[in-house]
């Protein structure tokens, strides 16, 4: 039986036994390459579920939809390892209770679909810990190395050019499971921290702020990068910041649901070579 078939059956069982009230998965999209999120509440609909290597978006953000989990019923969700990490981060930040989530895990390393064992975040701990040791291939290591070799002026020019394209649509924010704030800092105007116009300065500020707020929380699922309509390589900033928190604080976002948020904790012997 294909994994898709297997998981359709699984979803059916979960729904008909009443174990979950909803399954969040993938369905056919607007064309062959695309998949779109599917929210299923009855066993009959489960045949609409699609699962293949094109199912790339991280669905964990939908769990925070207002009111979805407040009746304490459970919800099943299709997740890749990044999605499970995202769940851990959200739980560590008290946004959801992982006991209410049934994971239907899968991955597709090198385009080959495989099922992942386990339905609770704890069962994925070993897998996630192993991920900490490897640098993801998709992140554009080469491009990153190139940027790091540049002089500050060149780097500024590089990002100036990229950020000048930004239209402040905030799609990156909407697509990100970690961007759950009811009131984002860019929406606040007392005081107005970030210029609202999409001129390069405002865009620079916006992208810096977002990257900072995602530092140590981003699980590099790539939702923001794919959502960006003008193709700003957000993955490069995400990768850089993930590297930074790993090297400086040995922090890998989403290893457990009780992990301390890196920027809300400290060690007395944190490095401070740069402080005069």
């Amino acid at each position: 039986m294909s994994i898709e078939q297997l998981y359709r059956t699984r979803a059916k069982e979960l729904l008909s036994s009443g174990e979950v009230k909803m399954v969040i998965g993938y369905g056919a999209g607007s064309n062959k390459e695309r998949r779109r999120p599917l929210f299923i509440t009855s066993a009959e609909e489960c045949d609409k579920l699609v699962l293949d290597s094109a199912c790339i978006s991280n669905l964990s953000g939908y769990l925070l939809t207002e009111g979805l989990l407040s009746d304490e019923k459970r919800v099943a969700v299709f997740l890749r390892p990044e999605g499970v990490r995202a769940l851990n981060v959200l739980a560590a930040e008290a946004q959801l209770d992982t006991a209410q989530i049934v994971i239907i895990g899968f991955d597709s390393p090198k385009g080959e679909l495989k099922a992942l064992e386990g339905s609770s975040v704890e069962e994925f701990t070993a897998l996630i810990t192993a991920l900490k040791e490897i640098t993801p291939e998709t992140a554009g290591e080469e491009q990153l190395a190139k940027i790091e070799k540049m002089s500050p002026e060149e780097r500024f020019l590089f990002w100036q050019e990229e950020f000048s394209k930004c239209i402040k649509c905030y799609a990156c924010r909407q697509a990100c499971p970690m961007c759950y704030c009811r009131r984002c800092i860019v929406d606040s105007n007392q005081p107005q921290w970030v210029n609202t116009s999409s001129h390069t300065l405002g865009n620079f500020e916006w992208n810096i702020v977002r990257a900072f707020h995602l530092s140590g929380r981003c699980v590099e699922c790539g939702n923001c990068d794919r959502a960006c309509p003008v193709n700003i390589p957000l993955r490069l900033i995400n990768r850089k910041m993930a590297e930074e928190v790993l090297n400086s604080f040995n922090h890998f976002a989403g290893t457990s649901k009780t992990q301390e948020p890196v920027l809300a904790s400290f060690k007395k012997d944190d490095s401070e070579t740069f402080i005069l």
Partner: protein
Amino acid sequence: MSEPFEPKITAFVCTYCTYAGADLAGTSRLKYAPNVRIIRLPCTGRISPMFILKALQKGADGILISGCHPGDCHFTHGNYHARRRWMVFRALLAFTGIPEERIKYSWISAAEGLKFADLINSITEDIRKLGPFDQYHKLIEETQAPASL
């Protein structure tokens, strides 16, 4: 002849240590460069990275952020939290091309009036050598130009 470049430096300091240090520099009649604008905050933990961006947005050429030495924080650990944040924010700024030399961090206690005066002098000299932060100033100018239609 154009006027010589005078760097604009914004200092965000905590009230219990560095501000008191600056005060000591004043009452001790120590002379230091007048290029610095001091902004006093309750604690280094209150110094949000947004302040740095705001100062740049308003045309600062250099920024100093300073507070109590580790272990001396009036609120016991505001400066430890701040230190982590700076570490991460600093890396981010460097990655986007905002030169590290323009943004300095220090611990200055209430007793270190001399350290404060010396630091302000040396930072002012450093920034003077670097020159105005033209790359950023150009972005600011662009925001003031009428929109092209």
